[in-house]
């Protein structure tokens, strides 16, 4: 237990801070969920790549910096301190990248990782299907070996939904049923596909706030080379579970994000202190306390991983904690804003980021495995309670 940064770590922090102060856009970008905003965010991804700050934990060989997890945390802290934009390529950085590094062939690593690191290709995830949300194994989209060309292509048919970034991204990844008649977790394969392939139709899903960053994807006999499959045929579930683990685990939501929100909430509270409710005052303190607790926990998990350990079902505790913290912080802000809470843009022209943040926070307990699923996992894997089909 050593909670003092080394001088190298302090120097690194100073380096990140200087770069961020110089490069983070002064004005907030438009939302990532619309075309204009997405493009602005892609520009930002390329700016990051130009400073080699895009994929800091990736090995240098793939365009990263090979930072350790403490450096990553420092980077993230400074990123959120500077008010850095959301990451358009989050799916690539935190989900697909680690998956390819773990399961990909050398050829796949070269082919996919480097352009990702340069901000050249933006990635969408395509897990869910209309009947397979929380029940991720209920996949029915098929990828069948084509007969016409020596079996070197899959032909994909089916539908995916809630595909984040898919409205605007370049490539997608997901799992498909490659064994006819297989059930549940068996016979699935993890496949990457060019979103501009013939036969793919993207139907943007209009979200409740009107933006359309998510999409449904319709696959009508889409030909995809077999070499786009990650790991073996039929191993898709294993790969997807590893990917979902990355998502729920350490890197999906770095603590800096919530600490920054907590700090803004404290500032908002101070502006409204005179007329605020007692519950809001306590909620503001709770925000700071929980964001700090989340940070400590992340540092502890990082240290554990660096010492050779791994993160297991504890990732479910993380997911529950940060998603409910985020919602509570934004709910408190909405209460503090009172009548102004409903405004998308305040009188002075500023965007009401608390409102947008509240709406976004409502998705936290739903996506990346609903919190109901996470509580099941916690109970069954950490507390060893019995599983029951209907339970």
């Amino acid at each position, binding site marked *: 237990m050593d909670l003092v940064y080394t001088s190298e770590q302090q120097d690194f922090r100073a380096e990140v801070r200087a770069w961020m102060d110089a490069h983070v856009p002064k004005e907030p970008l438009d939302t990532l969920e619309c075309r204009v905003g997405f493009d602005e965010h892609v520009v930002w991804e390329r700016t990051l790549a130009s400073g080699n700050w895009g994929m800091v934990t990736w090995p240098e060989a793939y365009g990263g910096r090979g930072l350790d997890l403490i450096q990553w945390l420092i980077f993230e802290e400074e990123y959120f301190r500077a008010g850095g934009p959301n990451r358009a390529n989050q799916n690539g950085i935190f989900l697909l990248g680690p998956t390819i590094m773990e399961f990909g062939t050398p050829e796949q690593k070269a082919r996919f990782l480097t352009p990702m690191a340069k901000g050249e290709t933006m990635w969408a995830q395509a897990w869910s299907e209309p009947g397979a949300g929380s029940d991720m194994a209920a996949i029915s989209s098929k990828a069948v070996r084509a007969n016409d060309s020596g079996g070197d292509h899959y032909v994909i048919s089916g539908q995916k939904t809630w595909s984040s970034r898919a409205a605007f991204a370049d490539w997608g990844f997901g799992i498909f049923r490659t064994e006819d008649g297989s059930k549940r977790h068996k016979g699935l394969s993890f496949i990457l596909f060019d979103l501009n392939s013939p036969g793919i139709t993207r139907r943007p899903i209009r979200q409740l706030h*009107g933006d359309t960053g998510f999409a449904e994807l319709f696959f009508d006999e889409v030909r995809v080379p077999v070499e786009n499959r990650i790991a073996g045929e039929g191993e898709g579930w294993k790969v997807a579970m590893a990917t979902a683990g990355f998502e729920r685990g350490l890197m999906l939501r770095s603590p800096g994000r919530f600490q920054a929100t907590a700090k803004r909430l404290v500032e908002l509270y101070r502006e409204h202190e005179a007329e605020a*409710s*007692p519950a809001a005052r306590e909620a503001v303190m709770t925000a700071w306390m929980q964001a700090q607790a989340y940070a400590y926990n992340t540092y502890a998990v990082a240290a554990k991983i660096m010492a050779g350990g791994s993160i297991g079902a504890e990732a479910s505790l993380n997911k529950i904690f940060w998603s409910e913290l985020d919602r509570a912080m934004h709910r408190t802000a909405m209460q503090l*804003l009172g009548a102004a*809470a*409903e405004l998308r843009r305040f009188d002075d022209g500023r965007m009401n980021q608390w409102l947008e943040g509240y709406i976004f926070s*409502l998705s936290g307990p*739903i996506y990346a495995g609903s919190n109901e699923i996470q509580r099941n996992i916690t109970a069954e894997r950490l507390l060893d309670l019995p599983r029951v089909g209907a339970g």
Partner: protein
Amino acid sequence: MEFLLNEDRLALAETVRDYLAGTHGPDVLRRLDAGDNRDPAIWQGLVNMGLTGLLVPEEFGGLGLGFVDAALIARECGRACLAEPLVDTAFVAVPWLLSQGDTAQMAAIVSGTAKPSVAHRINPWVSDGDGAALDSIDPLRNLTRPVGTSSSDPLLLDLGALMSAAQLVGLAEAMLDQSAAYAKIRTQFGQPIGAFQAVKHQLATAAVAIEFAKPVVWRAAQALSDGLVSAPVHISHAKVAASDAAIQMAETAIQVHGAMGYTYEVDLHFWMKRSWALSGAWGSRAFHLKRIDDAVIGGGLEIGPDQTFA
């Protein structure tokens, strides 16, 4: 002493409920949202039912009914997510204008040609006002900063808060119904999600909050009718209880709907947005809690088992 919504009142509210259910479904909300937000035909339907004159004295052509009746109708407006300014005009502005002795617009209000809505120092923005448009998350809200009439009369704020509370109850009830209906048809892991205890218990918890917000609203309306000195405290209680129930219900509803609840395609979002808007309107949570604080902790109100209706 009879804490009972009598048959006549309930019959009128039920008529309004049935009328709105038949003519003002989610498809209408979508049509309005795609168009001009308001529809003279909808307004005329409300006028035809006499609702614009609900609180207008009979001598001006109204029905001369009271705040409990109005609260029951406001609840139905919430349930239907009605965007027309019926509540702001007929249940808030009308009684306030009458309290000022201002009867000039009454006939025009009854006939539906005048739709005044009055802003307040605490609630500076109103729907369908005459000033600059504001950008509300609620697409049907037509929120404006009025250039004309504004007041700092506490009665006006109380009326706005009470009628917002009543709408919030209706909004919450509608979201509960939508969520229960969705939980019956959406299947995961081979069964309707409503069969899972996790879903059942979340919805039951929200149902409790709604159930115990309702009588607080009726009591507050009656307290205002009875002219109790304590009416503002009870109205604040109603606003806090109804807002908290609606916000809790909205969070539960979107959780039960899962990713579908996050889309424009599912109806839920209209009700959530109205709930977010009304829970902050006509006095923030903090504002109303402060009035309760002064009464309960500050000693402004007699409390205890023998003071139920103080």
